[in-house]
């Protein structure tokens, strides 16, 4: 069969966007020095160095442990919350839904700083707990805490993929089970769970990758206590040998990519049976929420407990910090309350520019990215050839590469691939890097809506003479428009707080808030970091509320 030309273009462009930076990294990993130096030659020394370095193995072990821990925390909790909010009559559904998104809005570094202020050894809650109960039985710097915080903060991603999948589940299947006497739990386990298995599988792989790639939390909570993880090991490699050792950094990236192969294979294996999960059929199926009965309030308590630990603790920490000049166990907070930090931040022209750029890259760039993700999802849709297999892998692999290194690879792409060179100093380069790095999240958001549209709907259109393209635009796209709008909102959020990928491409005039936050915390005072983080949260919150006002819903 001759490949449809637009599909070929999509596959080619995707392959190019993913493989160019990746290719440079692979090439760099087998050289003795920077690939752009004439005296660099082919060698496998870098692999020898890394594989013989005991610190690499410690970091690898820690990363795998933390990633597994995150999985154990995030997967069941995210799936359960999705089920509760999407499919049951849990009280306050409408309020819970946007709240669950909040952790996505907060960059990991800010989240970690929030936990330090709130629940660190002298944090507000720790001190209060000691005053009230005499103890504060937690240590946010322990490896377990890092895995739990990482897991809790990834609950929203699992929630999203699973709730998008659940959105399509007609009440008929659930009711069928209920009529035979099954309780809510049984329905959830035996009906809903198998239906969302592909979404769960994908979330699992993503959360695991996020754990392997984790940097911000690992650096703030782990590194000062000598707990190393892969991305921190990579970060250390830049200074450990004095001059940044690109061949070693690239080698670590290549090893991480190799590590991800079996995971993607496993995922692939599960998705082979994707057709089993078609839920949007030619026949209308109305959705009615499951009644929880006596379980309503316990379910609400669970959701609120998660919100308290994941959202309220760190965000109240960083917010409190933004309104005081200093803090500590002996400081009466009322004596040091101030608005100065906000006045200061608002007097900054750079900040105004940062806000404008952030909104531009989030709203416009996010929209464009979703268009690309949709094209990619369609190219892989309802086809099970080797090209689709290739796409499955291409889509996942960018997330496995730590952001800072991905950013450096993109700088090289724009410097050394001459047709792209003129675009380097424009927002396009940043947009492309963001789009590729968030490809696994975005493409999956779109395709999880797509996979639920029964093929008989398209076939119906084709049978009355529509072309496949026509069927796509007139039948499939309208059916997934909620999914597309939701994806846009979420991609906006991810772009809004992204930083590390853009660091090598940002220039004067293209500052974004994420960047200002990180550089301020490296060199400056936490007063400004906290105030800026709070302002950023408020802005993003306004964006989310606006989106919801305009009818964006996570499920219909």
């Amino acid at each position: 069969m001759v490949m449809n030309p637009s599909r070929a273009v999509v596959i080619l462009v995707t392959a190019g966007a993913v493989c160019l930076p990746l290719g440079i990294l692979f090439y760099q990993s087998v050289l003795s020095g920077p690939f752009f130096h004439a005296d660099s030659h082919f060698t496998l020394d870098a692999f020898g160095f890394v594989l013989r370095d005991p610190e690499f193995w410690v970091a690898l072990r820690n990363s795998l442990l933390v990633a597994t821990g995150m999985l154990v925390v995030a997967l069941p909790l995210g799936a359960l919350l999705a089920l509760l909010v999407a499919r049951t009559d849990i009280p306050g559904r409408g309020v819970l839904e946007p709240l669950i998104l909040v952790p996505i809005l907060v960059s990991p570094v800010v989240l970690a700083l929030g936990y330090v202020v709130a629940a660190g050894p002298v944090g507000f809650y720790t001190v209060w707990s000691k005053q009230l109960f005499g103890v504060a039985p937690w240590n946010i710097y322990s490896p377990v805490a890092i895995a739990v915080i990482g897991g809790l903060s990834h609950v929203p991603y699992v929630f999203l993929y699973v709730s998008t999948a659940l959105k399509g589940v007609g009440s008929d299947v659930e009711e069928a089970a209920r009529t035979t006497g099954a309780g809510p739990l049984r329905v959830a386990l035996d009906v809903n769970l198998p239906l969302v298995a592909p979404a769960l599988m994908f979330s699992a792989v993503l959360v695991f990758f996020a754990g392997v790639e984790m940097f911000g939390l690992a650096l703030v909570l782990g590194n000062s206590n000598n707990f190393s993880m892969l991305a921190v090991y990579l970060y250390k490699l830049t200074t450990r040998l004095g001059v940044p050792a690109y061949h070693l950094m690239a080698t670590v990236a290549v090893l991480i990519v190799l590590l991800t192969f079996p995971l993607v294979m496993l995922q692939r294996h599960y998705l082979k049976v994707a057709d089993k999960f078609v839920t949007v059929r030619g026949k209308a199926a109305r959705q009615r929420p499951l009644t929880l009965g006596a379980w309503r309030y316990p379910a609400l308590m669970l959701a609120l407990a998660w919100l308290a630990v994941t959202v309220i603790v760190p965000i109240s920490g960083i917010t409190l910090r933004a309104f005081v000049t200093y803090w500590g166990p002996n400081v009466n907070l009322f004596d040091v309350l101030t608005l100065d930090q906000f006045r200061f931040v608002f007097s900054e022209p750079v900040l105004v520019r940062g806000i404008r750029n952030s909104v531009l890259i989030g709203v416009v760039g996010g929209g464009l990215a979703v268009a690309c993700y949709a094209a990619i999802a369609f190219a892989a849709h309802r086809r099970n050839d080797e090209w689709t297999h290739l796409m499955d892998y291409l889509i996942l692999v960018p997330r496995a590469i730590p952001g800072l290194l991905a950013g450096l690879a993109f700088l090289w792409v724009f410097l050394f691939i001459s047709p792209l060179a003129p675009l380097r100093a424009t927002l396009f380069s940043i947009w492309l890097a963001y789009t590729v790095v968030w490809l696994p999240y975005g493409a999956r958001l779109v395709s999880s809506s797509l996979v639920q549209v029964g093929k008989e709907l398209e076939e119906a259109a084709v049978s009355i003479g529509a072309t496949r393209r026509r069927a796509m635009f007139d039948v499939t796209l309208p059916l997934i428009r909620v999914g597309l709008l939701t994806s846009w909102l979420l991609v906006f959020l991810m772009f809004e707080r992204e930083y590390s990928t853009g660091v090598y491409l940002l220039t004067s005039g293209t500052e974004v808030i994420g960047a200002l936050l990180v550089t301020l915390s490296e060199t400056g005072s936490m007063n400004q970091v906290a105030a800026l983080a709070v302002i950023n949260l408020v802005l993003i919150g306004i964006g989310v509320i606006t989106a919801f006002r305009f009818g964006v819903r996570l499920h219909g």
Partner: protein
Amino acid sequence: MKWYSAMIATGLALMPASAFSAFPDYYPPDYQAIVDAATAEGKVVLYAPLSTTTLRPLIEGFQAEYPGITVELNDLNTVVIYNRFISEAAGGAQSADVLWSSALDLQAKLVTDGHSLDYASPESAHLPDWAVWQGKGAYGTTFEPMIFAYNKDALKPEQVPQTHADIARLITENLDTFSGRIASYNIETAGLGFFAITQDSKIFPEFWTLARALGAASSRFYSSTGEMIESIASGENVFGYNQPSHASSYGRDNPSLGIVFPQDYLVIASRMAFVTAKAQNPNAGKLFLDYMLSQRGQQIIDGMGFHSLRDDVTGPMTREDLTKTYGDRLKPPVMGPGLLEFLDQDKRLEFLNTWKSSLSAGQ
């Protein structure tokens, strides 16, 4: 059209010259030619690990003097500055006109690799000898002592180390107070921390005793200056070894944060600046470099908390003040090939290994 734009450029160039009448008398007579050329270039691109907020006074001062030239600051961390600059240089792409960074070893590497423009600033004669890298056009621009910080609520006055030797002694005497609550830079990730520690290892004979004591106290090592200082101010940690001098400016706002200038000696850090060899705006770059080193520029830099290295600048803790107290116990970094010492891979790894094994030997 050419004559037209040239006239505008000349007009703009003449304005500042007439407004400030003249340059200091030791400037070369043809300096106005650089100003004219710089004004024609219209901008200077600067890479520095400093936020616009911090740098604003300097940028405003420069632009008041040369209104036709804008300063484009790229606020990047020191490693990013290096990576980005060498990549851009290799790709023949547009890059920085001036590199200004506290990572002295990386800056020195760029200079010895031929990336600096050999520009003899007319201000050279007014700088201390160590701040001028002769024949390379690279200059130290600040005078930033490495200091101690402590939490006033957590330590009794007699528990606060005043010298480097005090640290190990007081840790041993008060292990419970200090254990798990000493902060310093992570020398594997923070270039400034590595620099300060290697200087200590050369100056302070009992350095490895100190390292073992830091290990015995399960010290915590940070990558980010902000987090590190905050942890001492809040009382999460009680003592900070090798803190950057601008920690003292936080001490002014925060009554819990105490600052100690070690009495035995002061390691001085500095920020090295140079115009890049292939700068697109070399004249504007020279002008900015000269301004940073000039008396007016240094007065502003001193106000930013980085301390001036000139004699004719007044302010708290200038080099002159500290020289009166410390004499030759000030240890400034000599801008020169000596800065490359620990870029030698084997030497660096050996130092790091000794450091780590000393830390764990103390435990």
